[in-house]
């Protein structure tokens, strides 16, 4: 009985500690805005049209991705989707090309922010890639050079950072389920930190070339425990079965 009580007491203590962690207010930048700095566990989203609840990609709990809006292809989008879903599909990611903005957020590995008053630096563990979001009041340039990860700017609406990203090269997918996007993709992300331990990431994807309507994923990220860091990830080191053709290792020859 004493053992059961001890376990119960420990459970209550753990709940109190977690509660204290999450109920603390979000830290603030020197300009008074919420500071998103930290290493964040996010939900593994293999398919942007499916909800994810509870599990975080790196072992945490409380992550989620809730879909709203309908995923309706245009004829061009449907043609690309059909092309992607043939069994012999070439996955650019398997060839170590950049995963793209949305797909980088979907990965099995966490991401981090380094936040300053004039910029938000996003760092994904997947491929150890980074992306800078200026928040100094500049507008998104009109003539954007097409790129894998797009070009972003951020503006504050109260305590919500609204990040707009466009200028994609159209060579990435929105997810590993291979939902395509075109170079017309435009992302609007509304980011808030409602408390110390959580970040709300509300993504709207608009791509009139490939989708009839915007698609929205509202996600919750969970702050990883103190001391957690991003690890190294090098994509091209040992792709032995790249493209479906394996090369024999020395011990197999």
């Amino acid at each position, binding site marked *: 009985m004493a053992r059961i009580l001890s376990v119960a007491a420990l459970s209550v203590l753990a709940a109190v500690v977690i509660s204290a962690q999450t109920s603390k207010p979000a830290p603030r930048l020197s300009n008074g805005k919420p500071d998103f700095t930290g290493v964040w566990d996010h939900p593994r989203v*293999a398919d942007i049209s499916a909800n994810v609840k509870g599990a975080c990609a790196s072992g945490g709990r409380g992550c989620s991705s809730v879909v709203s809006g309908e995923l309706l292809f245009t004829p061009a989008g449907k043609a690309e989707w059909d092309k992607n879903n043939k069994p012999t*599909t*070439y996955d650019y990611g398997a060839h170590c090309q950049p995963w793209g903005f949305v797909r980088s957020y979907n990965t*099995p590995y966490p991401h981090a922010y380094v936040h300053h008053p004039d910029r938000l630096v996003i760092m994904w563990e997947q491929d150890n890639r980074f992306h800078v979001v200026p928040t100094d009041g500049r507008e998104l340039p009109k003539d954007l050079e097409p790129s894998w990860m797009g070009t972003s700017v951020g503006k504050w609406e109260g305590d919500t950072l609204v990040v707009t990203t466009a200028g994609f090269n159209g060579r990435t997918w929105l997810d*590993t389920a291979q939902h395509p996007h075109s170079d017309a993709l435009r992302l609007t992300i509304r980011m808030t930190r409602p408390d110390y331990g959580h970040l709300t990431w509300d993504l709207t994807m608009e791509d009139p070339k490939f989708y009839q309507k915007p698609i929205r994923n509202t996600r919750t990220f969970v702050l990883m425990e103190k001391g957690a860091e991003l690890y190294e990830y090098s994509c091209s080191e*040992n*792709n*032995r079965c790249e493209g479906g053709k*394996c090369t024999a290792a020395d011990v197999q020859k």
Partner: protein
Amino acid sequence: MPRKLCAVVLAASLGSFVVTPVLAHHSEAAEYDATKPVRVSGVVRKVEWTNPHIWFYVEGKDEVSGLAAVWGFSGAAPNGLRRRGITKDTLKVGDMVKVQGIRAKDGSPNAASRGVTFSDGRQVFTASEQTPAPK
């Protein structure tokens, strides 16, 4: 994490690895055939603790196909395994193991591993992830 606790934690997640469709980040479906399971018992000959997937080689016989060979098995990336408490010291050359996985599409003696069972009963989930396949 202590080895025993590690084994318990990992074993807890092991039960579903046989039946759960796995969608690896490298479009695993393009490289491996989920309908072709392999179960190889044998001795670990080599371990490559590398990105983007670890590889380990087991000399033994696949009880499904009957093929005896040095079987190559891919696993998750070192960063993902590290967060599960699995390090390069978990799997050693000379260990007797039984490995479950799905076979490479090219017919070579290679497979994507799902889990490893050691001779002392410890079970380690080595697959990239457990994620439902897309619709």
